[in-house]
């Protein structure tokens, strides 16, 4: 009895694994950042964003996963948004719920200055979260 693993399929399997990794890897990855969204009653599904701005629980500011300063945020956003037409300039704004106004208001101004379409990323208020 001779049992053999079909070695000729190894190349296909390796190629497929590579394809899966490339598809799932994001260029603008901010999944490592820790923040808790604020809640709201009504939310809507947002289309594909051009950029994401995050203020995490440590009050640090990130543009597309890279730490940045408020003073350079508008310029950095303008670079990402480029000459995209209105309606295609969505900027996701993810703010930790306990962030204070003195931190997030200048960021909102910077996004507005860069001409981005601001979208607050929030969590829908459910009866459980209301408690």
């Amino acid at each position, binding site marked *: 009895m001779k*049992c053999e693993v079909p070695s*000729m399929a190894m190349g296909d399997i390796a190629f497929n694994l590579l394809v*899966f990794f490339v*598809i799932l890897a994001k260029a603008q990855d901010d999944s490592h950042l820790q923040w808790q969204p604020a809640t709201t009653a009504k939310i809507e*599904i947002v289309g594909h964003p051009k950029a994401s701005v995050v203020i995490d629980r440590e009050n640090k500011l990130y543009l597309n996963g890279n730490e940045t300063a408020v003073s350079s945020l508008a310029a950095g956003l303008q670079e990402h948004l480029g000459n995209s037409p209105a309606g295609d300039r969505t900027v996701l704004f993810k703010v930790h719920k306990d962030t204070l106004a003195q931190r997030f208001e200048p960021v909102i101004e910077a996004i507005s200055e860069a001409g981005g379409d601001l*979208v*607050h990323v929030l969590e829908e208020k459910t009866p459980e979260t209301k408690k």
Partner: protein
Amino acid sequence: MKFRRQTKLLAEPPSVATGDIAFNLIVFFLVCASVAPENGRKQSIPKSDSKTDQQQQSKNIEVSLTRATVSINGNPHSEKTFPQQLRSQLSTRTRPEDKIVVVKSSKDTPYDVWIRVTGYIEEAGGVITIQREEERTIVTD
């Protein structure tokens, strides 16, 4: 003369189907691993000019926020009465420029309070604009 048959039992999975299996796996992955869309709330904030029309500004509704209080044109309200009060004030205004609501937040206003109150303003038909205090350094001789 007897010949011994050499029976070789070769157990091999059908490698011909491997390509099809790989193709199906790609399709399943593409269908299932779609990027989950984000949920949120859009907000359009008019750009503020440094030279504002003071007369126009004095006509706009002003909402002041602190950590625990919210007030309309200096009159404090509870969160329960705020939406109704704001709606009644905005209903009398027909022009779009009169529906602008100036939001002034104290430095220690948390984001979730800000989101809640601005949500009420938008539901009432107001257009939010932010007013911040600027610090300027003036050098005197």
